[in-house]
């Protein structure tokens, strides 16, 4: 009987050691899961990254288009917020974000002036949405003013509201809020990072180098 017990314990120990390395293998097996999930249409949101002259960018895609672009310092918060407030079915997928990331790369390489990827602005309503729609029509290489986009959104006096709408633009760069400046010609704001606005406007030739 004692032999049997020892035998059982030994067998159980051997069985347990059989799956050594499972943790590392599970990590590798998870790597393609986001792409597979996107292909099967199981994701509400897919995200990916690209590097740019204004730093690392997060690109988030909904089934309807690019829904979010975030700069480096906001990436972690944005991913948490999206998972908590929009959907937990959010995964990294290079496939689902590939088109938008490629267009961003081309834009920063100077090979693209307009973005073809659809934009999903369905989260933005009312006046703010009209401001972003007006902003989306400002051509590459030119600038507009807060007063002008407020006017084209239907209320030329709502310059502050227009500024707020641009400040919470969920898809900067693609919806070019950097092309909106003050009526006096000064650059205005860009989420506390005016240097990025300068980089983008210089890239487009709308602002001369010093």
């Amino acid at each position, binding site marked *: 009987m004692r032999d049997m017990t020892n035998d059982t314990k030994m067998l*159980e120990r051997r069985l347990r050691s059989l799956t050594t390395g499972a943790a590392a293998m599970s990590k590798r097996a998870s790597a393609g899961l986001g792409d597979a999930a996107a292909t099967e249409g199981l994701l509400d949101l897919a995200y990916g990254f690209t590097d740019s002259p204004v730093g690392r960018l997060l690109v988030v895609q909904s089934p309807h288009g690019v829904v979010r672009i975030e700069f480096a310092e906001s990436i972690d918060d944005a991913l948490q917020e999206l998972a908590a407030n929009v959907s937990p079915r959010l995964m990294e997928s290079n496939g689902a974000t590939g088109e938008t990331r490629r267009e961003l790369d081309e834009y920063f390489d100077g090979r693209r002036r307009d973005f073809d990827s659809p934009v999903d602005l369905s989260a933005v309503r009312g006046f703010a949405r009209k401001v972003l729609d007006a902003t989306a029509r400002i051509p590459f290489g030119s600038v507009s003013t807060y007063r002008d986009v407020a006017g084209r959104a239907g209320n030329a006096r709502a310059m502050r509201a227009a500024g707020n709408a641009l400040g919470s633009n969920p898809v900067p760069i693609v919806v070019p809020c950097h092309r909106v400046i003050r009526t006096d010609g000064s650059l205005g704001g860009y989420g506390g990072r005016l240097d990025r606005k300068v980089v983008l406007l210089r890239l487009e030739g709308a602002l001369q180098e010093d």
Partner: protein
Amino acid sequence: MAIAEMTAFRRPKPRVAARGGTPPFERFLEEQRATVYRFLLGTVGPVDADDVFQDTFLAALRAYPNLRDASNLRGWVLAIATRKAIDLGRSRARRPTPVADPDDAADARTAVAELESGGPDLRDPLWTALRGLPPRQRAAVVHRVVLDRSYAEVAGAMACSQETARANVYQGLKRIREILGD
């Protein structure tokens, strides 16, 4: 996702909060993947583990929005993995060629070659012994012995009574001993 949901983008959604803290799917994956893979390695073996692992988590992702109780995510995903492993075991058993044939061994060697060092040792005769078990016994043994789960948990994952779970583990271990003793 419905368009109506997308429009709630920046606003907090009480429905999600009320659902009882379903974590982001990627965090769930990160927390459960090692256990699920360990289970599948033991039940379906190294050649099929990757595919069944992916099937399991895609099924979990499909069901994720309707998950009512997030208090036992491990039990939930292991139950999915168990169904997949048993289904595969049965379909393999119906095939004319036995699982432990030379082709399969060649596949296994290829898989092993792809593995990083520290992976399982496929020359261990225990693999052959495990493969020799009926799928339900194999699943029960891996749950109980490899994952160290209680009989109540094994029964939950296998959708059977605790007595049946206990019997499957007992029969499985006995059979392994017989095969190893041959």
